[in-house]
């Protein structure tokens, strides 16, 4: 079954059009939502987390319609959600907080609930600090507490909004490993603006920009979009849409006009992403 079906979804907040006809599908494994800040990723993820309704379009999650109260409740019972900025109850210990969320996930039998809380804390490697107050944990550990609560009850659909943002490289790699394993046997929707995460983790990827889906396919297909359009040269090409000096002193030129005498090289997912969303992002880069 396709866990997530999003069809021509729109959403506006006042005059700001957050989503302008997004469509995508996600099945088992990790699906990446790639896009710059303000692309509409978080708005879409809030919809997938059933806390925001679209103005128009259609969403099906785990075969149910989140617009119907009974279906929505069923989806919520099978969903794990980590928002971009989870507001932890900082006076709680890690265990107490996950325990609190477990009750909200209808695990009311104390004995089995505590077993489940210990399990998910173990999954994210927080057993040794489970008795520590959340305010005393590092940013990475707090993120792991957030991930632990999202895994309670072994959800069929896990929605993670930029889970690796603000983490140091070692923590990011650990998170990557965890998300990769979480994606084995269930659907994970991962929002990010980091192309390396997508390349490393995702079986499918959707690129969203200005509230629209620019691409929906595999990372390899995304990379293919830049095939024959990336060159290494000693000089910055004036015709390149994007160009930067690499660590070796050569210039990486991306564009449709080949610089004379330049070496055509294999594109990366980052090249393809930059080409796809165009000059607007180039300015930010």
């Amino acid at each position: 079954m396709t866990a997530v079906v999003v069809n021509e979804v729109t959403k506006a907040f006042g005059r700001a059009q957050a989503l302008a006809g997004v469509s995508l599908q996600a099945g088992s494994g990790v699906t990446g939502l790639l896009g710059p800040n303000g692309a509409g990723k978080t708005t879409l993820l809030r919809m997938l987390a059933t806390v925001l309704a679209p103005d128009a379009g259609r969403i099906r999650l785990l075969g149910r319609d989140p617009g119907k109260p009974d279906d929505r409740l069923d989806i919520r019972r099978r969903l794990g959600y980590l928002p971009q900025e989870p507001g932890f109850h900082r006076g709680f210990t890690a265990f107490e907080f996950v325990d609190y969320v477990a009750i909200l996930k209808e695990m009311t039998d104390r004995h089995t609930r505590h077993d489940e809380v210990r399990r998910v804390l173990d999954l994210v490697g927080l057993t040794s600090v489970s008795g520590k107050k959340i305010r005393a944990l590092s940013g990475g550990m707090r993120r792991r507490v957030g991930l632990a609560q999202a895994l309670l009850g072994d959800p069929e659909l896990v929605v993670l909004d930029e889970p690796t943002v603000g983490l140091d490289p070692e923590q990011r790699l650990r998170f990557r490993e965890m998300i990769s394993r979480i994606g084995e046997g269930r659907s994970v929707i991962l929002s990010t603006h980091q192309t390396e995460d997508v390349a490393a983790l995702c079986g499918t990827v959707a690129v969203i920009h200005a509230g629209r889906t620019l691409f929906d396919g595999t990372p390899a297909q995304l990379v293919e979009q830049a095939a024959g359009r990336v060159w290494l040269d000693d000089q910055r090409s004036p015709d390149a849409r994007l160009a930067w000096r690499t660590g070796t002193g050569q210039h990486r030129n991306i564009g449709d006009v080949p610089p004379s005498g330049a070496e055509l090289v294999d594109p990366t997912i980052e090249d393809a992403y930059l080409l796809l969303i165009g000059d607007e992002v180039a300015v930010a880069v």
Partner: protein
Amino acid sequence: MTDVLGSTAAVTDRSSRRVPVPVALARLEAPRLARHPILLVAFAYLGLLQMIEGDTGPRAAFTMLTDVPTMLYGSFVLFAANLLASRERRGANEEWLDSMPASAAARTWAAQFAVLGPLVVAAGLVTVGYAVSLRADLFVTPPTLLEMLSGLLPVLGAGLLGVMVARWLPWPGMAALVMTGLIAVHVWLISGESDRRLLGTYVEWAAWPETGNPGAWAGLIPGSRGWHVTYLLALCAMAATGAHLGHARSKLPVLALGGAFTVLAVVAGWAQLP
């Protein structure tokens, strides 16, 4: 850390939902609320006040068990319950928690049940105080159960009001504003010798002596204790119902229930007067 993530089976048993979510949540929240820092401050304040004023005598022993819990502890409970019930909004995680199967109404119920924590603490202290005072022969007339209840129920009411304020007036300082309003109304009700003092947030059943030691016994004021307790229960129920009005799918039954409790409060408030 487990070697292979996901290799351990989830320990879930949603089929055996014997305990409703609000009750399970309240079991977690009630002890937290009972030991809320604000309530620890309340105890310190009460102790300090007792040391400074230190009224002794049968009237003081009586009022310690019938008025003080309301007047002081209850005020602090309002703030503590308000902070507990507004925690999600203040932490900006309301939307996150809305993605859980348990509804916002369940969280409100849980906050309301959690008020039982401080109430149990207050009831325990009153019970111990009653036993000690009785053993020390401090009473001329010991308080009845209804008189002690009339001191304890406003603690419950204050907590429920704190939850209601968190749902309806979710802005900083609103609990303090409501408390100020309560005090103003109460001061107006108890001013003079009118019977309207029975409509206040707490009632001093032991009459003040005309002169001399304020701890001295000067009898009890008239008024129906039973109807007064009913009046307080109706006010508690109004606050509890009001908190749910905002997120009730169907407002009419909640409004009808609130209306019924209001009528009961009016009737009992009238009937308690001597």
